[in-house]
């Protein structure tokens, strides 16, 4: 016989109380941990994806769209800009690196992104095998792409037009895999990286082809060729208005989707975006700032759920308090009896406190389990929904903080419930003829 045994017997003596306490506490713990972990994981995923990109330069439009499209590769781009003009602006001592990117095609839903040899450096991506693309129509795969498409070095594939998977419009220019990157847990994992020239070449030929069509089919061309791809039309390099004129090979007319910029110091971030937005027909957006704004929008939901979780936590603390308090009252006879057996006040406190902490411990376990199972489902939903798998990362400090908060609140509830034991009048309880 020992204190633990008695505490356990007490719990099993009133299983319904125990079950209700565990249920409400574990739901609130699960909800709190789950929502915090989800929030932190999403933020981490986004912020980590930014890599070294401090500013993005693109066509006028929504800055958030520009960031989502050209930095996180989740949305359609705002339009195209002239490479020459962009280079003029980014030849500035404040700028450490300016990497042009251009895209418009995909392979099995993975975006094919044209850039130069500096792109991988933005994400500190290293090669797992092979090499970086050195000429047109060569590609290096992000690790996720390699895994999911089963493409190997030396394989060739045809890209599809637009940013979403389709089999209707396939370009007839084979791309050759020359390398595969190591996993970075950044956005590059989900990209197929090639040279800018590949994008230009594919769409030049496409353009010529289109022009021939146009001569034959006249005005109906667009409805015929791209009936279901209205969004991607904008995204497509070849459909930008002045390329339709057909001067493709002159360097001054080359177009890109955006320019990713990293600054040497904060000064650039403070002065350049404003100047660009004011003086040019391009826009500059700061990914960190835009994401912060985005989190502020979505944060309302997170905050609301957090508050609900805190309220449930408070309620479950009260539930624990009430059930322990009731237990102390209802078992006053038992506790008084234990005193006549020679138990000290401290032993009685321990019996009830252990009982409370056993319930809390079980609730914590169930709560953590609930949050992990819940997140697992939430994440698999995200994965299939956005083709954007979110890194499951446990923010331990946050978790420890939350668990501590729970323990403190529950500790107070338990303490308040067991204090009456100290003032218990054994004689009165035992002589009370009930």
């Amino acid at each position: 016989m020992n204190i633990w045994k008695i505490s356990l017997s007490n719990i099993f003596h009133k299983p319904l109380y125990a079950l209700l306490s565990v249920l409400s506490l574990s739901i609130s713990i699960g909800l709190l941990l789950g929502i915090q972990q989800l929030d932190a994981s999403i933020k981490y995923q986004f912020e980590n994806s930014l890599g070294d990109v401090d500013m993005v330069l693109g066509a006028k439009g929504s800055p958030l769209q520009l960031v989502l499209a050209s930095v996180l590769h989740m949305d359609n781009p705002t339009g195209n800009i002239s490479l020459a003009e962009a280079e003029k602006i980014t030849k500035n001592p404040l700028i450490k690196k300016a990497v042009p990117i251009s895209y418009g095609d995909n392979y099995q839903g993975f975006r094919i992104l044209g850039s130069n040899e500096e792109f991988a450096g933005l994400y500190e991506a290293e090669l797992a095998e092979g090499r970086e693309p050195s000429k047109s129509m060569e590609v290096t795969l992000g690790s996720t792409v390699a895994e999911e498409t089963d493409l190997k070095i030396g394989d060739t594939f045809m890209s599809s037009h637009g940013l979403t998977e389709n089999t209707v419009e396939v370009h007839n220019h084979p791309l050759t895999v020359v390398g595969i990157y190591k996993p970075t847990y950044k956005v590059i994992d989900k990209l197929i990286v090639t040279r800018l020239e590949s994008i230009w070449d594919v769409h030049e030929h496409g353009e010529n082809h289109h022009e021939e069509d146009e001569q034959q089919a006249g005005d109906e061309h667009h409805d015929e060729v791209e009936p279901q791809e209205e969004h991607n039309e904008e995204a497509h390099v070849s459909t930008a208005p002045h390329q339709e004129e057909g001067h493709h090979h002159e360097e001054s007319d080359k177009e890109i989707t955006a320019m990713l910029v990293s600054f040497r110091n904060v000064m650039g971030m403070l002065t350049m975006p404003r100047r660009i937005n004011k003086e040019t027909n391009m826009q500059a957006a700061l990914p960190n700032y835009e994401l912060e704004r985005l989190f502020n929008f979505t944060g309302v939901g997170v905050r609301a759920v957090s508050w609900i979780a805190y309220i449930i936590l408070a309620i479950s603390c009260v539930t624990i308090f009430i059930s322990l308090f009731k237990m102390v009252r209802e078992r006053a006879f038992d506790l008084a009896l234990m005193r006549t057996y020679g138990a000290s006040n401290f032993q009685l406190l321990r019996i009830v406190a252990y009982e409370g902490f056993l319930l809390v411990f079980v609730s914590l376990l169930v709560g953590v389990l609930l949050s992990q199972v819940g997140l697992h489902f939430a994440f698999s939903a995200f994965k299939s929904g956005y083709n954007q798998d979110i890194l499951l990362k446990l923010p331990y400090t946050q978790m420890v903080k939350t668990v501590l908060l729970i323990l403190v609140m529950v500790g107070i509830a338990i303490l308040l419930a067991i204090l009456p034991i100290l003032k218990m009048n054994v004689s009165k309880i035992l002589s009370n003829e009930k």
Partner: protein
Amino acid sequence: MIQTHNLSFQHAPTLETLRFPDLLLEREENLLILGKSGIGKTTLLHLLAGLLQPKTGTVNLDNIALHSLSAKKRDRFVGQHIGVVFQKNYAIRSLDVMQNLEARLFFAGLKSKRERLHDLLEQLNLAAHKNKKIHQLSEGQLQRLGIALAVVHQPQVILADEPTSSLDDENCEVVMQLLLEQAEQQNANLVVITHDARVKPLFQNQIIL
């Protein structure tokens, strides 16, 4: 040996002070304390059991002054040397019969020997019920468990508070026989406090409050 001197108690400052006669019991002597309801019988028993602090006076158990011990020491001392049969036969409700006996010894800081516990339950005709929860026991079984809990730790003094008040004549006799038997076996003083006249013939020493 149990001895009281000049014992008095006051429940609240505004209430009348209860005064109790001095008692002296040598080893193995039994005592019946008779009195009407409300005269302070239970108070006296609780004073003897160290559950109440007297206003004046002392209770000596084997020459140890009960109320001069620290609260913690007194709890332990009382737990080891005194056994109380309460008016209603309370046992710990979340434990079964055997566990109750083990808990009784555990809180007194004593080791439990399973054979001895088994023997005791056998004597009190409870062996068949040793794994039953308290609420599964009949009134008579509860009464006998109350006695078992009062004697399992081989105390020097067994105090019984109205042990027979709710019993019919037959059970009254059975319970008193068991109490006297156990007290004799353990060489303990048995002090019974009651208003039940049926018990009178069983005791040589009697006082009336």
